[in-house]
């Protein structure tokens, strides 16, 4: 461990703002990139299921 205390870890010398904002942005951007396709998958599956159901109903009524 490089830092003596948790306060020193948060302060990062005088560069706390810079270091933490850079790491924060990285985490946010990576998370958004991971979460977006997860949410999108639900949307795509629901959409295709609805399409399939419509086609099955059409076939049943013919």
């Amino acid at each position, binding site marked *: *461990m*490089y*830092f003596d205390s948790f306060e020193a*870890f948060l302060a*990062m*010398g*005088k*560069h*706390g703002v*810079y*270091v933490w*904002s*850079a*790491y924060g*942005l*990285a985490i946010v*951007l*990576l998370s*958004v*990139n*991971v979460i977006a*396709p*997860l949410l*999108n*998958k639900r949307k*795509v*599956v629901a959409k*295709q*299921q609805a*399409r*399939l*159901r419509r086609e*099955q109903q059409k076939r049943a009524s013919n």
Partner: protein
Amino acid sequence: MWTWYHKLSSPKWFYQLSGQWLPWIACAAVLFLGTGLVMALAYAPADYQQGNSFRIMYIHVPSAILAQSCYMMMAVAGGIVLIWRIKLAEMVLKCIAPFGASITFLALVTGGIWGYPTWGTWWVWDARGTSMLILLFLYFGVIALQSAINNTSGAARACALLSLVGLVNIPIIKYSVEWWNTLHQPATFKLTEKPSMPMEMWLPLLIMVVAFYLVFTVVLIMRVRNEILEREYKTNWVRKLIDPSADRSIKSSVKNGGE
């Protein structure tokens, strides 16, 4: 070799194989990212000149490397689209662009955040920064072109052409610190030389680079899988996969068997 190649380019095969691999790659990504973050933030020693602001390097360098390799992969996919018209390559081409844009954005912003306390400026129009900004606009161009053209394979071909033309920017980014006088420091890692940093400093960087590549792989696979579900709707295996009534009949047969 060729059968393997044809198999790999089949969406169905890719969907099944990537489904098996995805959990493992995701685990590895979390593991590397977690280890890398802890090492980079808490264990690496501070730079004797830059102090703790140098820790931004552990975000900046991996994202800048990945921004360029993403672009190269996109261009390779583009080449495959133009020459062999493989559907999977069209999907990969489309799915890389948004991640590439956000990682390029991250490299640019962390460069600014690092630059301000270290060299006293957020941004200069030097060769490295400007060519990275052009890379970001190339990604935006591909995304915009993709959404502007309704015809799927037409859009893919247009994007492929743009990404191949934009490939000229990659060597410019790479050699910009050597060709022009710039504020940007030369490359931290060189394949041919021993790193100039002590091990405690470069090991976290190596781990972070691997972690970024793994996250990219996870995101790309998830996006391509969604794209397959979207585009391969007409095939039987996708219909079977998404069909809720097929699912129900399995459940009911299990239930009936139990009673």
